[in-house]
C-alpha cells in the first residue's frame, strides 16, 4: 500500500543521530584547510543528509514510484539550471 509501510520510531532516532553527526563533521571540516575539497565535501554531506531525511523521514523509500519520480525531477531541474548557467559564466 502506498505510504503505509510502517517505519519503526527507532529508525527516525538513528536518522536524527546520523544527521547530527554529519552536522558535526561538516562544521569541523570547514575549519580544516582542504583547498578545493572543502566545498565538495560540505555538499556531499548535505546530499547525504537530504537523502536520509527524504528516504526515511519522508518515507520516499516505500512511497509510490510516482512520488519518487517527482522528487527526482525537482532535483534534476536544479542540476540542469545550475550546470547550464555555469557553462555560460565559466566559458566567457
Amino acid at each position: 500500500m502506498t505510504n503505509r509501510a510502517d517505519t519503526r520510531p527507532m529508525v527516525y532516532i538513528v536518522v536524527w543521530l546520523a544527521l547530527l553527526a554529519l552536522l558535526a563533521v561538516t562544521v569541523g571540516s570547514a575549519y580544516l584547510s582542504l583547498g578545493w575539497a572543502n566545498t565538495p565535501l560540505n555538499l556531499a554531506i548535505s546530499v547525504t543528509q537530504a537523502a536520509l531525511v527524504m528516504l526515511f523521514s519522508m518515507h520516499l523509500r516505500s512511497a509510490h514510484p510516482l512520488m519518487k519520480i517527482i522528487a527526482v525531477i525537482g532535483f534534476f531541474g536544479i542540476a540542469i539550471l545550475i550546470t547550464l548557467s555555469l557553462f555560460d559564466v565559466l566559458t566567457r
Partner: protein
Amino acid sequence: MANGDAALAPQFDDAEQQRTASNLGIWIFLATEILFFGVLFAAYAITRVRFPEAFAAGSRLTNLPLAGTNTAVLVTSSLTMALGVHAARHGARRALVGWLGLTVALGCAFLAIKAVEYRVDYLEHLVPSLDFRYAGPQADQVELFFYLYFFITGVHALHVLIGIGCLATIAVMASRNAFSAAYFTPVDVTGLYWHLVDVIWLFVFPILYLISRS
C-alpha cells in the same frame, strides 16, 4: 472499506486512492519548492564562481555558532515531526498533539535564534541597503554576498513561519479528534512540507556559513 467513512471524498473509490492523490499533490508542490530555491542556489553559484574571495570573506562574517545551533534545532524538529506522523498512523491522539506541540516549539526556537542572528548582523553593519559597512577589498561583492544571505535565509524563515502556522492548525484539529489511524492525511502532508523545509536548510547552511573558516 468506504462504508461510513466520513473522511472519504465522493470522487475517490477508496481511502487508499484518496491518500495517494493527496501525496501526489504535496510532492508536486514540494518539487516546485525545490525549483523555487533552486533559482536562488543558481544565483548563488554564479556569483560565487565570479567572486570567490569576496564570498569567502563574507562567509567568515556570518555567525556560525548561532547557525550551527539552528541546524541542530531544525533537524531535531524533523525528528519530532516524524514521531508525530508515527503517532497519527497508530491513532495515538495525545502523543500526536504532544509531538506537534514540540515541533511548533522547535520551529519557534529556530525563528528566535534567527532573529538574534539578524540583530547581531545589524549591529555589525552587515545589512545591505540599510546599514552596510565593510573596510576590506571588494566591498561591493561582499555586499552582494549579504544580499543573497538575507534573501535566502529570509525566504527560508518565511517557509518555517508558514510551517509553524500549518502545524499549529493541525495540532488544534488533532486535539479535537479530527484524525484517526484510518485518516491522518493532513498530518502526513504537513509533515512532508516540514521535512522539506529542513532539507532545504541542510543546503543553505553550508553554502552560506561554511565557505572558508580555516
